[in-house]
């Protein structure tokens, strides 16, 4: 079974772990998605949102309740894990305790009956990339937790011809310095070998720096797929707004007052969204704290707040203020002088996102 790297199609996939229940709860709601060959994807979402289930479906450890998986247009839904040519790395190090590091790395190749020379070449390449060369002959169980995780990672990367490498929060146990280097290594591997990499994480920074495409999931649902920039500037739902960015997006209850305007408490805010058919409806206005500007005096699109807290993060200051009972957070440059007491904040209309029923208008 010698598949080359492939385009992976997930078509109408859904999954429940209790299919016999009269009212099954779905770990994954129906979705379709395509993973292009050679790209880097990150699946981002809180714990228990279905990320791992999705990976297990692709690798064949879980058979989806409904739907079909295609590698390069060939259905593989009924194919067993061992026949799928997928590499998967789990969150916690899984190593073969009884083998040496070399044997651990060589195992996937031996199972697939590669030649001895080829195995040696690949193990050497991978162990060089992962800094494991000096341990090759030691028993794997003697290594530290992060070295063990490197072995797991190495077993995933040792085959060049895999359809995709799926990684389930693989760097959790690795210290930050090495983490950074490994992420860069993974990027290089992806660029060099054009291996599709799918990376599950709940850490947005990891996702943003690693992936070309980010898939945001929540409660078994794919909420948004897009470039890091899109997710940041135009979150499709309030969940994405909350989940991505630090601090979370400012989101206020508001009422639509005209085609382009909403009212928060008594302040009118102009936006670039077309709100014609939502007049007088209750909506939510979202704006990133990064986009809120300090205004010197009251003008259009400013809100007056009472400053409650200033936190200095070194490279920026985070202002927290109150407008009535609403809390507003704004990031400003560190050098900027902050007036005491009341101040005006300007909401640029092009940066305001309006959400009706939690979805972007």
């Amino acid at each position: 079974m010698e598949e080359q790297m492939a385009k992976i199609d997930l078509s109408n996939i859904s999954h429940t772990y209790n299919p016999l229940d009269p009212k099954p709860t779905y770990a994954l709601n129906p979705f379709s998605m395509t993973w292009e060959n050679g790209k880097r994807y990150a699946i981002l979402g809180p714990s228990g949102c279905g990320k791992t289930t999705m990976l297990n479906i692709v690798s064949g450890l879980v058979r989806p309740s409904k739907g079909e998986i295609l590698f390069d247009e060939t259905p593989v839904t009924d194919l067993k894990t061992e026949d799928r040519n997928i590499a998967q790395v789990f969150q916690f190090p899984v190593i073969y305790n009884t083998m040496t590091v070399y044997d651990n790395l060589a195992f996937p190749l031996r199972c697939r009956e590669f030649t001895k020379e080829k195995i040696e070449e690949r193990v050497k390449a991978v162990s060089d990339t992962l800094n494991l060369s000096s341990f090759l002959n030691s028993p794997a169980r003697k290594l530290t937790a992060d070295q063990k995780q490197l072995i797991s990672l190495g077993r995933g990367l040792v085959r060049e011809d895999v359809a995709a490498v799926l990684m389930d929060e693989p760097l959790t146990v690795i210290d930050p310095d090495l983490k950074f280097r490994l992420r860069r290594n993974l990027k290089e591997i992806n660029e060099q070998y054009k291996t599709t990499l799918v990376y599950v994480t709940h850490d947005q920074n990891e996702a943003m720096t690693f992936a070309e495409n980010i898939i945001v999931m929540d409660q078994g649902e794919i909420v948004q797929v897009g470039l890091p920039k899109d997710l940041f500037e135009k979150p499709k739902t309030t969940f994405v707004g909350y989940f991505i960015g630090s601090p979370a997006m400012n989101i206020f209850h508001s009422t639509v007052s005209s085609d382009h305007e909403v009212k928060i408490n008594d302040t009118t805010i102009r936006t670039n969204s077309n709100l014609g058919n939502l007049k007088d409806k209750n909506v939510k206005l979202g704006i990133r704290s990064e986009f809120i500007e300090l205004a010197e005096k009251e003008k259009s699109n400013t809100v007056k707040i009472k400053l409650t807290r200033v936190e200095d993060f070194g490279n920026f200051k985070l202002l927290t203020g109150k407008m009535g009972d609403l809390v507003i957070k704004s990031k400003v440059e560190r050098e900027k002088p902050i007036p005491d007491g009341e101040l005006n904040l300007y909401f640029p209309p092009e940066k305001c996102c309006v959400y009706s029923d939690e979805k972007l208008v």
Partner: protein
Amino acid sequence: MSKLYTFLKYFFITFWTVFVVAPFLWAVSTSFKDFQSVNSKVTYIPWLDFEPTLEGWRVLVKSPAKGGVDIVEPYFNSIFVTCTASLISIVLGTLAAYALSRFTFKAGFVRNNDITFFFISQRIMPPIVLSIPFFIFLSTIGLLDSLLGLVVVYIVLLMPIAVWIMVDFFNRVPKELDETALIDGCNPYQAFYKVVLPNSIPGLIVAGMFCIIFGWIDFFFAFILTFTEVQLLPVKVVALNSSITPWWSLSASALVSVAPLIIVAFIVERYLSKGNLSGALK
């Protein structure tokens, strides 16, 4: 305070050591005595003040015709039955335990835990409950008073131990290990014997040790299910006793009976102290 603690610690260790070792030393000393030395008063040092003789040991290997009780054959019978039954129990029990640990079974209200409990329940029952069914069963298939019959019965007795220990062990082996093996290209059987099994050697050793101990020390079934053709060691040792208690040969037979278990304990201890048992799962 700490001095008192140290004192108490050493006191209890010493006390316990004496408690465990003294009977052995007593048995060693007694096994080299004869009737005279056992029953007469000591003049100088207790335990050591006697004229050593090998009579107690010779009785064990002499044939009954020459006034001995030959325990050589029962000894090897016991080794054969214990080892065979333990081996089969470990093989079957490990497979059963793996299935119980990795797959979900449903039959009516019966779930995995119920099946595991069913295995263990074989050991919870008082053995006397099983004696009549076993007796009838073995006599029906013509295996009463035979080594094979004993092996069959011992498998029934030992497999629950193997299942019980191994289910617990496999449950602590992360299922990601199997999954990784599948992803690396093993089929489920290869994943089991190439990856999961080598990782489970410590569990297998512990299970094996328990099987050997429980098989070796069983007297009840060996006594009930055999008569003249086949005898196991525990039954033969008991048969040594007569109107005059032969302390010397009883001591000698006790020593040779526990010897294999001591050897097993030393082997297992080596494995335990190597840290294989604790480090295998992380």
